[in-house]
């Protein structure tokens, strides 16, 4: 249990500190890197909770896709971050208010014990963490019971792909493309043509 607490506090402290660094770092690239670091630590917290599938998804989706996208935006676009940072402190009261609301909500959750008056016996199937990995369980459900939904999700993604291609792809006329086949089959003897130039006439 000691090890568990130690890991928990380690991960959460680093997550909070790196989240702080995200908003306080001067260099925006450093901010994004701290954000990634924070995500990785949050993934560690998920592993501690026995939700290793969520941890993997967090790494794959947030670190692999979202944060990299941020990094691209930060590096590709010419945004003046010093200007963006100017009114930084004026949002402090609002942020403090949101934090206060969250703290109050946590306090209410802590003070009222909801599990005792939860009389609905139909739900709350607790996963047995030590017996089955939840990736396996999700996979077993997804490919058998909810196979139909899984397939519709696939079709929705396909439609999204078709849609985005249809709306953005433009056939520009006059674009010169490299044709590798032609290049490879080009014959040296035909590529260069020798002509005799008559004096005073030129080549047509």
């Amino acid at each position: 249990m000691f090890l568990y607490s130690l890991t928990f506090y380690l991960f959460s402290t680093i997550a909070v500190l790196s989240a702080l660094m995200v908003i306080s770092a001067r260099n925006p690239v450093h901010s994004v890197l701290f954000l990634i670091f924070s995500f990785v630590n949050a993934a560690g917290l998920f592993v501690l909770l026995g939700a290793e599938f969520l941890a993997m998804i967090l790494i794959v989706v947030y670190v692999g896709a979202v944060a990299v996208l941020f990094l691209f935006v930060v590096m590709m676009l010419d945004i003046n971050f010093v200007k963006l940072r100017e009114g930084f402190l004026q949002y402090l009261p609002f942020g403090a208010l949101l934090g206060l609301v969250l703290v109050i909500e946590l306090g209410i959750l802590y003070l009222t014990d909801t599990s005792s008056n939860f009389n609905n016996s139909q739900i709350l199937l607790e996963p047995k963490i030590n017996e089955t990995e939840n990736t396996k369980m999700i996979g077993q459900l997804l490919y058998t019971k909810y196979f139909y939904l899984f397939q519709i999700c696939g079709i929705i993604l396909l439609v999204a792909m078709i849609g985005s291609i249809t709306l953005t792809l433009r056939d520009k006329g006059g674009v010169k493309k490299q044709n590798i086949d032609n290049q490879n089959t080009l014959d040296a003897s035909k590529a260069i043509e020798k002509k005799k130039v008559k004096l005073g006439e030129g080549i047509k």
Partner: protein
Amino acid sequence: MKWQMLNNINNIIFIPEIFLALFSFISLIFGLYVKKNAFRQTSNFAVIILFFTIILVYLDNYSNFADYENLFENSSFISFFKILVLLGSISTIIITKDYFLAIKLKNFEIPILFLFSTLGMMLMISSNNLMSMYLAIELQSLSLYVAAAIKRDSVTSAESGVKYFILGALSSGILLYGCSLIYGFTGSMNFNEINFYLLNYENLNMGLIFGLVFVMVGLAFKVSAVPFHMWTPDVYEGAPNSVTAFFAIVPKIAGVALIYRFCLVPFQNFYLDWSQIVFFLSIASMFLGAIAAIAQTNIKRLLAYSSIGHIGYILIALIAANDNAVKAASIYMFAYMVMNIGIFAIILSIKVKNEFLINIYELKGLSKSNPIVSLSISIIMLSMAGIPPFIGFFGKFYVFIAALQQELYLLSILGVLASVISAFYYLRIIKIMYFDDNTEIINIYFKISYQAKIILFISLFIIIFFIFYPSFLINISSNLIL
């Protein structure tokens, strides 16, 4: 252990959808590899696919049971509405083909988007679970968002696409929140299980009422019932006419079927809770549809308000919630589809001064230059207004019969009043065509392909001659089981 599932003959209820999905993929590849006239070829291919899907849906009729963990249900009501959706989809693809070619939108993806949208609607009608309902709605609307914005160089088309997308996402969010509340309080997402769970209760608790309201809001958005109708006129106006035709004809059918199933299957014992919501939606839709359309001169906005009004009448039948309600809804939806196919087939073929028809005052003098076309428009308009010999009258007639059987006198009177008000703008179009003097030289051309002409002819035939043989539809619709 799962082999048994594959060999199970019961899975036949699934075949039309599998067929449609599979051939949508094939038509995607087909469109890519056809070099010449890819749009036209893919449209024809799509029509053939949809035609065979109708046959498949017809063949699995009346296998009234659920399969696949009850995510998916089949019944005669569902089959009927699926066939309506497919017929609407086929007709729209045929009547819009020439318009797309005329405005030089030749992406072969357009009919494929319509195919996927139709697939979504079929899944939506037969969904028997909150999850499959949500996913089917998303599949259906995602294709339509893209279709609305398909005319890339037009600002209005992009605007309508973005507007539809953002508002659609908002309504999906509300719907999803409602679904999560219902799941949280009943412990199930299945329609039948929710119903079974609710049998123990006399009243819905607060959370379930919120869930019900939120889901109803999401569904009302999809059929554009009144407080949630704002997107309809703008999207209809901005999208290309041919896409508007699809919007007006097909998704409404699926949306209405889903609202009926959602109210009458999981919440059938809590009539009083949802009927209040539907009551308001219905009255507000009828009156707003009737009154706001008076000020419109754009034909697409006018038809948008007209469709809002029609949704109001269909919801009256839902409030009645008796045996005649399902019958009335199916007859009304059939009439709605036929009338809209007819009017859009004409609108998409009229050119005024080399531009496609936009303003209704451009129809001035049509009775002299094109008497047959103006006569057809008049017949469809009279039918939409619910004037007796035509099919629109029967739709309203059965709705009011269902309402009167349930002693909903106030609702029926208000419905008739709204119907009278709405007759004004339908008749105004007839007046413009026949009685307005046109000082300019009449410059209206009517050009229609022969396939679209067949569709127009069939729809006019049904509108006019339905009165002589109404029993074919009434017999079918009175035997429908939810």
